[in-house]
């Protein structure tokens, strides 16, 4: 057995899950897919790199700074661009798609101007290896999994047990009714966009010590988390988590056993799942 492969898969799952969760949250409130989500992930990792390697801050402080900065940037994007482009018709989603994809170019270009195009490494934050019955797992990877679980737990608590979480859930279910009960849906939208982007930045920060950091690293996790939420069913938070775990594990395990065709198999699997269950695993069929 190659436990290492499964652990690697789990680490990837954590990253995809955190990203997919933010994306689904944004989708369920704003009704749009944020195609620049992968770029928030990339910017989060780069801000962390600057904070830790250039400003010399501790890792935890860098994590908080990156998440806050990306949250604010996400709110700004929602206020300045998405809210203005999103016309209240089916066509609005189209314009938001075009605008967020253009933001993708914008952020990648901006990041390569500021940080350069080369890949950078952050260096180990938690050196050391845990040996468990002949299997070596670095503390780094365990930390990623633990941190993801903590973030998920916090999100669960916020959504289920706080007033703001109640407002978010109400705005997701019935925006009009939520407005009648005095919930400022416009502000909820901005807040949720900020939370979603902060989660993408957190995913980038978790990943930064393990993989190299560059302005072009946002593309593949973006596509993968998109596939994850499609498998899980768009609009379902459980679906996003399950889809992320499935994709992360599959990605690393299939790539280990059949290197070349892993992506073909992955995409073919997604197509088959969608043909059998078009609304996704946890989605509700809408007729």
């Amino acid at each position: 057995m190659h436990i290492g492969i499964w652990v690697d898969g789990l680490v990837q799952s954590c990253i995809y899950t955190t990203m997919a969760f933010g994306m689904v949250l944004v989708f369920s409130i704003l009704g749009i897919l944020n195609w620049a989500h992968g770029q928030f992930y990339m910017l989060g990792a780069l801000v962390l790199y600057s904070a830790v390697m250039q400003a010399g801050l501790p890792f935890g402080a860098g994590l908080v700074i990156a998440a806050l900065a990306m949250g604010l940037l996400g709110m700004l994007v929602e206020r300045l661009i998405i809210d203005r482009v999103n016309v209240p018709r089916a066509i609005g989603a189209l314009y938001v798609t075009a605008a967020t994809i253009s933001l993708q170019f914008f952020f990648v270009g901006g990041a390569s101007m500021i940080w350069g195009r080369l890949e950078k490494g952050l260096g180990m934050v938690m050196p050391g290896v845990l040996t468990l019955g002949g299997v070596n797992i670095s503390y780094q990877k365990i930390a990623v999994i633990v941190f993801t679980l903590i973030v998920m737990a916090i999100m669960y608590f916020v959504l289920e047990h706080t007033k703001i979480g109640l407002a978010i859930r109400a705005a997701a279910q019935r925006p009009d009714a939520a407005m009648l009960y005095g919930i400022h849906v416009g502000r909820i939208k901005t807040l949720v966009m900020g939370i979603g982007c902060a989660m993408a930045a957190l995913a980038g920060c978790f990943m930064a010590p393990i993989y190299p950091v560059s302005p072009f690293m946002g593309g593949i996790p973006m596509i993968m988390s998109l596939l994850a939420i499609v498998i899980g069913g768009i609009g379902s938070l459980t679906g996003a988590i399950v889809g992320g775990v499935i994709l992360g594990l599959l990605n690393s395990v299939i790539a280990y056993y059949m290197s070349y065709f892993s992506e073909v198999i992955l995409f073919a699997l997604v197509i088959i799942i969608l043909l059998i269950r078009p609304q996704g695993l946890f989605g509700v069929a809408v007729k």
Partner: protein
Amino acid sequence: MTSHIDWRNTLPKIVACIIVVPALLVPLFTNNPASLSIVILSGIWAVVAMGFTLILWTGQFSLGQSAFMAIGGYTSAILTAHLDWPFWPSFLAAGLVSGIVACAVGAVVLRVGGFYFSIITLALGEIVRIIAMQWQSVTRGTRGLVTYPPETISLGFINIDFTASTVPWYYFMIVLVAFSGLIYWRIGKSRIGGTFFSVAANPMLAEHQGIHLMKYRVIAFTVAGVFTGLAGSFYGHFLSAMTPYTLGIQESIQVMIMSIVGGISSLVAGPIVGSVVLYNLSQFLQRLNLEGIHPVVFGGAIVCILLFLPKGTGLVDLWTKFWKRVYGEVDFYELPEDMEKDIEVH
């Protein structure tokens, strides 16, 4: 004395002539292959963007148009390189194969709509690229296939030689854009175009009117596939090589942005305006050779266009807006709102 010229009818035609005639004469002004090839490639993207808009008219959002370009390009590249076919039959075969693939894929995949369809077409693009990369014996993998220019056409008094200069390619592009534009325009004006619109606007109502949704979606997807395949074959032979990296997700996204920025209310004018404006802007910015600033300006420009255009319109609709301001004419797309007002009155 009053004028008997119907300016409403003639002015748009005059403006169209003012745009089209210089477009035909571009090779007189410049022989520079670099500038000509920019114009040629923006024409190719216009054909692909028209296909995207047609699919969009049935309410579906395809992110895999570059997959059909790649299928077309590889078909004609394989036919010319391995089977020694001449260019012209393989060019037509490229459209045919791409259309058949679009029909087969569409019949299965169009069952799921909306975002899911977008994701599946996105996956399709990746699958085509990976197959092209891995099927070494036929596609030569990442090394790519070398494609040859079309054979010289002898017209008696003149020989059209595609190897000597870029000018024949230019007219070939004009013919391709004009032909596909004509077909798309006729489709848009005909009954079937209206049916596409109703399928997109209200699928349930359309189904209750006896319109077979799947049939029209597959028709749109197939027509777009045929022309996209032709454009892909042109693209491959013009660039003189097909590699798996030539066409990917980036290109599909580019086509989508061109179509939306140009305006999706028209099948022909919008894609042409969008692709010409955006492709030339992108190439111009690349030539400025400012390190890293090119994507920033490009992305920022598109966001600004989307922000400052009237809500829900593209560049081509500015012309319609101007026209309405001059004459106060009611156009086709505002008809439903007027009908709503009528209903309220009665």
